[in-house]
């Protein structure tokens, strides 16, 4: 499980101001692209995201 805070800091860096739902937007796009190939991104509410490979 990758905590949300870590994703935000690694994807956006320290300087950029981050909109509250910016990360959700990126995750949604990633999901769309990955799902046809198999891997699934699961949201663990309050904790972060989990990449599941089947």
């Amino acid at each position, binding site marked *: *499980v990758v905590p949300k805070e870590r994703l935000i800091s690694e994807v956006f860096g320290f300087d950029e101001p981050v909109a509250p739902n910016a990360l959700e937007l990126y995750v949604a796009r990633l999901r769309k692209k990955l799902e046809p190939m198999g891997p699934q991104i699961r949201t*663990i*509410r*309050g*904790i*972060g995201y*989990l990449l599941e490979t089947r």
Partner: protein
Amino acid sequence: MLNMLLPAAALAAALGVGGWLMIRNVVEAAHDRLLDGSVLAIAERLTVDEDNEVTVDLPPVALGMLESQAHDSIYYNVTYDGALVTGYQDLPQPDLTRQVAGETTHSDAVYRGNPIRVAAQLRRVFGKPDPVLVEVAETTNARRAIEYRMLAALGLLELGLLGLVGWLTWRGIGHGLQPLGALGREIDARSVPGAISLKPIDLSAVPREALAPAVALNALLERLEQSIGAVRRFTADASHQMRTPLTILRTHLGILQRRGIDTPEGRAALDDIDGAAKRLERLLAQLIALARADEGGSAGDETETVDLARVAAAVVAERVPQALAAGTDIQFEGPEKPVPIAANEVLTGEIVANLLDNAIRYNRPGGTVIIRVAGAEIGARLEVEDEGPGIPASDKTRVFERFYRIPRKGGPEGSGLGLAIVRALSDRLGADVRLHDRKGGTGLLAVVHFRGAVAKASPRADTEVGVIGRPV
């Protein structure tokens, strides 16, 4: 005993000193009055003769009244203007500047090597301009003799009193402690090796003076018997729990030996062996956790400031794979800010882990487990909610007992130790655990109330708060 007599002896000594001073004053006063009488008798007889000289017609009774059995020497002296009229020339004189005519003064002096008491008076005589000095003195043998007699009597009286007090105290203590001695023998008789009796003491046979310690002892014996009973039950239950997976292991090992690995029965046996080993491993881990929680005992020791939100989130993240494997959706709800509690990080983590473990294991397939952390008015709350069958009200207390399991068909396997561990750890941290029904459907809501962190409990707590408060 000696300690008890010491105050009495000190009191006796103080009384002795006071008594001696009083005796001295009384004896001196009585004897001084005799001297005064003698001085007066002489002074009354002072006259001036036809040659204008001071003369005295010394009456025998004037000195006779001073005679005593103690053979005191008596001296007298009459002087006018420094010249001897009659008596002993060298008798010591009082300080004449302080002497007032007509008043008798007393002083101590030494004459011819013996201590004497001198009474002196200046007396005006008709026909002479200056007063005449009259002195009468006596050695102090009689005075000292009476003093010593009275002092000896006082000393004897005090010794007798002291002895009486000592004897009464000794008798009193001996008598008072007798019931305790009987109680001691009664307790001694119980510690027969191999058959120590923890039965309460028969209070009807205990004397009233020893009732309080006997009642306290009975309460202690009862608690001791309960705790020994609890340890016995725990040992029996623990060994029973261990025996079941061990039996399964042996059975399936037997199947493996007979059938070999490459048969369907063999492969199934291998799976079962793996499961039994896992059960055994978990049981051992739980027993160790329980023993650790028990050995600390008192709440409040070794507490530090712990961020409940961070600890709970870490445990949840750790258990995500287990939850997903069980087909359970796991959610965490907590504030962005730290939730400081007074606890111990490892023990707090164990509490969260055990509750979470239960919530996942007993959840319905496809159900949700929600972990919530929130600061409360005092301290903080941890909630773990599942959508399993819940726990009936009648069992909500018993589930905290060690090895107690709700009799239920088809449920997951367990040792009955999880909630007992949560209770033991919570007790140690001074936290409070309660079980409720989930609102809006079946399921269990476990709530742990932690104690709040004291702001300046330790320098360590301060630095920790500082680190958390720094902007990231």
